[in-house]
């Protein structure tokens, strides 16, 4: 794209994609902003005119707001920690030469192909059910009282289900990163007298830092908006009401579009704060 001519040609050919993308992003954003300044109750009178920042103050002063932000952050943080730690361990394991490697790798990736709704239901009914669930049977086998997962350890359960879903993604990215590590570096470290654990901390982990950064960034984007897993399991009760879920309840259960839209704007702000924060911590390893 050196010449003036080819540059303008490129611009013209990229235009449709850019316009579609802009529309895709701008229309919902504008509509959210528009409704957030309105009193709009579809079943109770419809559009009742402008209200200024009323929706914003009401959303933030609701007793459900802070707990929902907290729940969101706990779920995102918990899933990130679990998937990254287990992902690194699994990737190390899968990198070892072993019998049936191909099949094992496919099995590890499999959960990623299960739809969130399905995996939520499978976990709820087949694993976590306090009467018939597999975990309940396991607990009983050891003579313990089965845990009522979704009501007594609700956040942990959601974190567990979501981690199970996202672990394959983390593992896959980290595995390819491990495979790109120059074997001679490990051998050099071995000759330099580094035992396996030191080789991991001094050679493998720094090599993985970039991949870990990518995993964290991508997962955060998706995890901030998880919904199906909560919808089909606890339906937002027992302290699992995330910001996304709260917005859903405001719009569809309370039929208050204006209030929900204001929540949506807060969600955008929260996502950006988290993103900036992460970029600060994690982005550094992306530069080098």
């Amino acid at each position, binding site marked *: 794209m050196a010449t003036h001519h080819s540059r303008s040609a490129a611009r013209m050919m990229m235009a449709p994609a850019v316009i579609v993308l802009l529309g895709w992003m701008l229309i919902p954003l504008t509509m959210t902003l528009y409704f957030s300044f309105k009193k709009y109750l579809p079943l109770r009178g419809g559009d009742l005119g402008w209200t200024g920042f009323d929706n914003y103050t009401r959303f933030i002063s609701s007793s459900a707001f802070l707990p929902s932000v907290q729940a969101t952050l706990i779920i995102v943080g918990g899933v990130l920690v679990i998937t990254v730690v287990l992902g690194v361990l699994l990737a190390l394991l899968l990198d070892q030469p072993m019998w049936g490697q191909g099949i094992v790798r496919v099995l590890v990736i499999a959960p990623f192909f299960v739809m969130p709704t399905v995996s939520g239901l499978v976990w709820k009914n087949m694993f976590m059910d306090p009467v018939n669930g597999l975990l309940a049977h396991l607990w009983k086998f050891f003579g313990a009282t089965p845990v009522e997962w979704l009501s007594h350890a609700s956040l942990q359960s959601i974190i567990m289900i979501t981690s199970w879903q996202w672990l394959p993604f983390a593992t896959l990215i980290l595995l390819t990163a491990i495979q790109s590590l*120059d074997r*001679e*570096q490990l*051998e*050099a*470290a*071995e*000759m*330099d*007298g*580094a*035992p396996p654990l*030191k080789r991991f901390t*001094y*050679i493998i982990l*720094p*090599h993985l*830092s970039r991949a870990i950064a990518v995993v964290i960034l991508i997962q955060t984007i998706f995890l901030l908006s998880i919904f199906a897993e909560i919808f089909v399991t606890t339906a937002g009760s027992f302290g699992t009401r995330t910001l996304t879920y709260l917005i859903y309840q405001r719009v569809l259960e309370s039929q208050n579009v204006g209030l929900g839209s204001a929540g949506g704007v807060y969600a955008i702000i929260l996502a950006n704060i988290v993103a900036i924060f992460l970029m600060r911590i994690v982005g550094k390893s992306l530069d*080098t």
Partner: protein
Amino acid sequence: MGRIVLDKVSKSFGTTEVIPPLDLTIEEGEFAVFVGPSGCGKSTLLRLIAGLEDVSGGVVKINGEDATAVPPAKRGLAMVFQSYALYPHMSVRKNIAFPLRMAKLDKSEIKQRVEDAASVLNLTDYLDRRPGQLSGGQRQRVAIGRAIVREPEAFLFDEPLSNLDAALRVGMRLEISELHKRLATTMIYVTHDQVEAMTMADKIVVLQAGVIEQVGSPLELYRSPRNKFVAGFIGSPKMNLLEGSEAARYNAHTIGIRPEHLTVSTDGNGWQGVVGVSEHLGSDTFLHVQCDDFEPTLTVRADGELDLDYGARVSITPDLNHLHLFDHDGQRIG
């Protein structure tokens, strides 16, 4: 310290035997070079000595002690890899200090040793850079620095210069030789470049397909190669090898004569031939001569100032004192 003995060491990968049982002794303080064509098992042999690869049979002894089951870190050997294998996320200082940190030396001692090594290798100005910000030759020196700080029993080099350009290679060759003279530590050096082997080695080990063809000093190998393979491999340009009726005159299957032991003249009664390409190096000229009586072209070393045109007729006389004779199996007979 630093005597390495291989006793009937062999190595197979699965069912393919890469190195049949071989015996080899590398004396203390010696500069030994493993040389051979690509894929002949040089790196494998070096890795067996380093302990990065398990032997399939035989015993590796270091300083008289059986080291076959000793892990690489405990063998007291330092290795310089072909790819340098520097740690990309650590500064040069940390790279060089790494083996010392692993050995849990105290901070001031580490600092001292790293700075000593850096000044020996002219790296003092680069200590705070990352490997990615260095040139190939500098990276090479960092890799050597990382090896020398440990004060090992022996150094193992696996084709350390093959990624450098020709001029730098000559320079680094000298530096490594000098380092060897200064440290007087055993060094084992793998290369497929016979010039490196000839210029650096106290002892050359010529390998082919995992088998040791000959062990000896550079001049021994040059003067009396034990077989046709060594004859063709050592010396640059290559020895001329002739078969057929010329060889039969000396009761041999093959005769060999080095380019420097042939004399070219315009009016003699040696082998008659036509000059093909001539390569002028300044100090010497290498002529490729197609003789009338036999097929292979002869390479002849002549005076640098000699100017013969393409297609000129010449006569070539071999120096019979330097004629190498080989039998049917390629073994030396005289």
